[in-house]
Every structure is written in C-alpha cells, then in structure tokens.
C-alpha cells in the first residue's frame, strides 16, 4: 500500500481512538506518537498492535499520531486501517 496524503480516522469519543497518518520519505522509518488514557497499563500493547498492523499493510515509512480514549484492539485496528486506506486513496464506495 502506498501512502499519498495525510489522513485520519476515528474520534475523541470514549472507547474510540483518533489516528492520523502521514506519509514519510523512503528510509525514514516509523514515527509513532501515542497519547492514551490507559498509557501506563496498555501503552506497550497498543504500540505493538500498531506496529503489527503496519507490518500487515507493509508500511515502513510513516508518521502515526494516536489519541486513544480507551479503544479496544478491534477499534484500534479498524481506525488505523481506515486512515491508511484514506491516505492511499482507497475509499471503496465512500463519498469523501
């Protein structure tokens, strides 16, 4: 998947997460900025999940800004996938 533009998905609602992704030049790597209401308890798990999901989509060079309001793993994966697809211009069947 090739990221083209800055994009985001999710919200600041409780149990949700707002994720913004921004393409980075080749070789820069991943820059992940995490803010979470459960940072102490689940911060590491959350970062692992984000990295695993980025691996799935073969994304190496990206900036990801995460503002987590206590989202469950499926919500985090879903919001990241949506943000990545929006960034790549893949918004099948959706009016932008």
């Amino acid at each position, binding site marked *: 998947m090739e990221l083209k533009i800055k994009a985001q*998905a999710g919200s600041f609602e409780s149990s*949700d997460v707002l994720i913004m992704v921004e393409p980075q030049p080749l070789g820069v790597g991943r820059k992940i900025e995490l803010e979470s209401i459960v940072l102490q308890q689940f911060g590491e798990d959350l970062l692992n999940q984000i990295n695993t999901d980025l691996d799935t989509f073969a994304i190496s060079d990206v900036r990801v800004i995460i503002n987590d309001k206590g989202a469950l793993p*499926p919500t985090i994966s879903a919001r990241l996938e949506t943000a990545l697809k929006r960034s790549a211009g893949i*918004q099948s*069947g*959706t*009016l932008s």
Partner: protein
Amino acid sequence: MLYIPGNNPAMLQQGSVYGADGVLLDLEDAVALNQKDSARILVSHMLEYISYEGCEVTVRVNHIDTPFGLEDLKQIVPLQPDAIRLPKVETLDEIKRIIDVIEQIEDEHQLPHDKMNVHVMIETALGVQNVYDIAKYSPRIDAISIGGQDLAADMQLVKANDGIGIDYARKQIVMAAKACKIDVFDTVFVDVENEEGLREDAEYIKKLGFTGKAIINPRQIEIVNEVFTPTEKEIRKAVKIVKAFERNTKEGIGVFAVDGKMVDAPVVQRAMRVLEMADIEMADL
C-alpha cells in the same frame, strides 16, 4: 432487535449486554455519508473480535445501488453474521440480483449458501405492493421488516408517528410473512421519551401478528420484551390446553372444552406458540 450505529465503538462493544434478542449493526441510515468506509471497516473488525453470545447478530448494509452497497456486501458476507439485512427492497428482480451477488461472494470464499439468513426491509410503496413475491423468492429470506420512517417519506406523509398512514402496509407485510411462514419485525418507535406510546404501539403490532419490534435505544428493550413475553396467566392457560389436547388425542377426541370454552386444532396451535415464546418445551409439561 436493537439498532447500533456502525461507527460507534462504545455501542458496538456493549451491544449484547442490554438484553435484546438481537443486535443490528447498522451501516446504512445511522452512518454519515463520509464515514461509510470507517463504519464498514469497524463493523468487520468487531464481528471478528466481539462475542455477541445469546444475541442474533444482523448487519444492515447499504442498498446495492448506492455507492456503498456492493463494498458492504464484499466485506460483510465473508464474515457470515447470523443475518444480513437489505434495505429498501422493492421488486422481485432486485432481490434476485442482490441474492445472486451475495452467493457469488460466498462462492468466492467457499462458504455455504444456507448459513447466513437474509432479512428484507420494505420501505417504499412499491415494496409493499410486491412484498409477497419478494419474501417467497428464497428460503434464506427468514424475516421481513417494515421501515416506517422511509415508507412514510415515500408516501409523502406529514405525520408518521401515529402509525395511521402505514397501517395498511403493516398488515400487508404481516400477511406476506405469514404466508411464507417467516418472521416479521415492526419499525422503530422514534419518540424515545414516550414510553407509554411505545407500549401501546408494541401491543398494537403484536395483535397484528408481528414477531418482534426494532428498537433504537436500550431503554426500549424492557417494554418491548414485556409486551412480547407471554404473561403467567397466558402460560398457565396454554399449559392447560396442551395437556388437555394430549389427553384427548389419546382417546381419539379432536374437539373438547377447557374451562367451558371450545378447543380445536387452531386453539391448540396458538397455545403451543405461547409455550414456544415462553421457551417452555413440550416434554417439560
């Protein structure tokens, strides 16, 4: 059946705890046009992660002729929720076309055609006219529901909440469902604050023959459940009738009396339905 907006993680993850018989994860009217992709992806992940144990899970997709419908089917059908709900179905050709697409997707994923049920929503005057042909088209259509708000708009009704304008449609849809021996669900009651109005509405549609009612707020579950759950008096009477039926059948008697009232096959059938709704097994009597 509790409607849950498909782009709301908090409600999606708590959907099964309120005591509804079923949850409807909505990708259609409850989702803003610019969030359709987000909701579709979220519901897909939730279906794989959350256990809605004890609750029938239905996903309402967008109509296939909208820019979102086909993609909804491509994402949701492979996950095989208990049922998929198709909104605004109007003609036989249309339901044929949609079920063909569903079954093509199932074939691509090597999935059977008989696991996931199809619920059809009737929400236009044309749909009401064609409801029987639509409902009987496929054995996998196991329920029809009426979408009162959209139907009222299609009929250009100014006032929809009193149910007068959609009364004919309700009856027509019930009759089609009964003819096809499938479930039939009533529309939502949108005035969440009006609990007495909801009770009256639920009691009315139960008398018409509806199997259940869609709800939009967990506060409405208790009232609808109360209306649709047989009372102790109804259960006692049903038990008495079924026991008398079994006794009389052994003696070769087809028509008999219970508490001075004639009982024949249709009365027994209704008593059995009461016991079924109360989850009472015949063997337990």
